């Protein structure tokens, strides 16, 4: 067809190849029940917490659709992008390599970059199609009378989109380098397992290892699930995904010696390292959660902004101590968004904390600022903040007896209304366990029947 741009034909080819992939149809088939199970379970638990059937209810301000429905429902996509999606991405490369089509494509006027871009677009479009059950969950939730806060929803979707870009980059690079699809699948899963191991090893260790682990796929997604939009996470994840495609470009261009490919790969790795380092320095982080769970009260933030010196924190809590998680999430994470520099040292000697020696200061958290230091065993927000105000000699904001900050119009996180919803997930089981699988099977059957 004259007049249709070459890139449109490349896209058309990739969409056709995607639809011809049984792995893609399997992904579509399985994602409905997976997302549905997450949604139905989440709505049931949310309803119980909201006091359905007249039972005891949780405090309404603790009921957030982000934690209660969005994260568990879209959690299915994390599973799918880890265990199913890589096979779809690998096939788009491996099938052409194995069939000899890639040799024809390499001789075409289209550049390798254009061909990989077309594959990337097709993969993302396929993934958006797989999001249909997730979007259906949002519609059902609204139909049930549930609340959705657009910035939270969009931020979570962005996190999952970046997660799939990273997964696609890794899978495509593995498919380009490996001799066959099976080897590529093993390499991709090996990468995922490696990042899990890194997460585990780096937890509570501090330093560069924990910094590195904060960019693994699981950790990166967790940031978005907490209602945070962190510039460095976006930059690093996107860069890693694009680097995967760039690496694939190096290895898919035939006619180069192995040494040339290795040198170019090393150059890319160096460029990647520099870009990642630069990306990790981005300090922009935005709390997009409806209840500002990642932020101190505005008045406290204003007071903390008066502190200009770097804060050093030495934590004598082990990685498996729940107090460390409280401290990290409720205090240190928030402080690092406000203060110019927060350097944390994790000084516990053991992993569980159960076997620390008597003189090991276990449970203590030391704050060092401008040559002064103070110790607190608390992980409670107001107590730690008061410690910091004393240390920095900054007058604390006036608090009312109830703990609310007196700044005009401001409500701290725990005083937001919350969104209880005591409903059953009507129709969801039919949609996810029957209608969606039937629709996918019917569409797949028609596609393969028409094609043959």
């Amino acid at each position, binding site marked *: *067809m*004259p007049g*249709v741009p*070459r890139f449109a*034909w490349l896209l*058309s*080819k990739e969409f*056709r*190849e995607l639809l*011809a992939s049984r792995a893609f149809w399997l992904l579509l088939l399985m994602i409905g029940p997976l997302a549905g199970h997450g949604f139905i379970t989440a709505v049931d638990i949310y309803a119980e917490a909201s006091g359905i059937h007249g039972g005891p209810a949780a405090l309404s301000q603790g009921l957030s659709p982000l934690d209660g429905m969005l994260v568990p429902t879209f959690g299915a996509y994390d599973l799918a992008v880890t265990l199913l999606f890589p096979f779809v991405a690998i096939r788009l490369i491996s099938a*052409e390599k194995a*069939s*000899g*089509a890639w*040799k*024809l494509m*390499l*001789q*075409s*006027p*289209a550049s390798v970059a254009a061909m990989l871009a077309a594959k990337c677009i097709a993969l993302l479009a396929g993934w958006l199609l797989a999001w249909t059950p997730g979007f259906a969950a949002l519609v059902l939730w609204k139909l049930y009378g549930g609340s959705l806060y657009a910035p939270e929803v969009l931020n979570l979707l962005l996190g999952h989109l970046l997660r799939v870009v990273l997964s696609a980059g890794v899978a495509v690079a593995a498919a380009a380098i490996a001799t066959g699809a099976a080897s590529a699948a093993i390499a991709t899963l090996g990468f995922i397992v490696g990042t899990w191991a890194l997460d585990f090893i780096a937890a509570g260790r501090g330093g560069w290892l924990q910094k590195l682990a904060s960019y693994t796929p699981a950790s990166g997604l967790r940031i978005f699930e907490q209602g945070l939009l962190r510039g460095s996470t976006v930059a690093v994840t996107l860069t890693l995904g694009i680097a995967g495609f760039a690496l694939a470009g190096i290895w898919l261009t*035939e*006619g*180069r*010696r192995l040494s*040339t490919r290795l040198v170019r790969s090393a150059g890319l790795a160096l460029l990647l390292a520099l870009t990642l380092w630069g990306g990790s320095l981005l300090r922009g982080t935005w709390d997009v959660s409806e209840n500002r769970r990642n932020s101190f009260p505005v008045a406290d933030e204003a007071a903390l902004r008066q502190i200009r010196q770097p804060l050093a924190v030495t934590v004598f809590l082990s990685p498996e101590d729940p107090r460390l998680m409280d401290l990290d999430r409720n205090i240190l994470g928030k402080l690092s968004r406000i203060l110019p520099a927060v350097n944390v040292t994790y000084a516990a000697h053991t992993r569980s904390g159960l076997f620390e020696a008597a003189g090991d200061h276990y449970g203590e958290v030391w704050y060092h600022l401008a040559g002064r230091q103070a110790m607190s065993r608390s992980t409670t927000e107001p107590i730690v903040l008061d410690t910091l105000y004393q240390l920095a000699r900054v007058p604390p904001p006036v608090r009312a007896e109830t703990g609310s900050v007196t700044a005009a119009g401001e409500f701290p996180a725990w005083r937001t209304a919350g969104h209880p919803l005591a409903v059953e997930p009507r129709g969801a089981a039919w949609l996810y366990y029957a209608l969606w699988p039937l629709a996918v099977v019917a569409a797949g059957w028609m596609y393969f029947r028409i*094609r*043959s």
Partner: protein
Amino acid sequence: MPIETPPPLLSAKAISKRFGPNFALRNTAFSVRENEVLGLIGPNGSGKTTLFECLAGLLPTDSGEVAFRGRALAPAHRKQSLFYLPDGIRPWAAQPVYWILSFFEALYTKPSGHGVRPSITDLAAALKLEALMKSRVGSLSKGEAKRVLLALGLLTPHPLLLLDEPFDGLDFRQTRDVMALLRSVPLAGRTLFVSIHQLVDAARMCDRLVLLSRGQVVGEGTLPELRAQAGLAEGGLEEIFLALT
């Protein structure tokens, strides 16, 4: 006033390629002239496919150079001047024949002045593909798939077309028809370089021949020229090849 001889369409000089300690090509040198059908003859393992892949820039050479119309042609730029159609491939098996032909035609919508390309309809008729147009490539027989591949090659606009075993999988009648079609290609201004392991087909099809044995060119020329190189007064390609190797 002396008449300047135009440079050959493509010339290869001292091309060597090793896989580990084994030479697949060793100082291979030959030339391809404008608008001819040049045959590459050699037994299995003689390096025919390796040579084609090196010429097409799909496989790096250890040494040697390729010139196109007298100018050095870097591997990255080969795809602008020549197209290599590999043997034994089955691209896009899930797609129908008409679609991959249309796709390939669309990839080359802006030929850079390289002759006139045949239309899909003409090629389908010439290669007897009309009845197969809606079939998936993966469902075709070996001979049918080969004819589809040939159609892909003939849809490209390059002045030089490298065909690896174009008759492999074709029956006698199909071989004869395809041979007639390929013989007409130079008339449209394109040059063919084909590897053929059937010596009888090669002798019937090609204007000139390059004989390859263990990665080395052992003879190049027309049949009478090769006969002279072999020191034979008469005899076919088989006798010539045996005499030269």
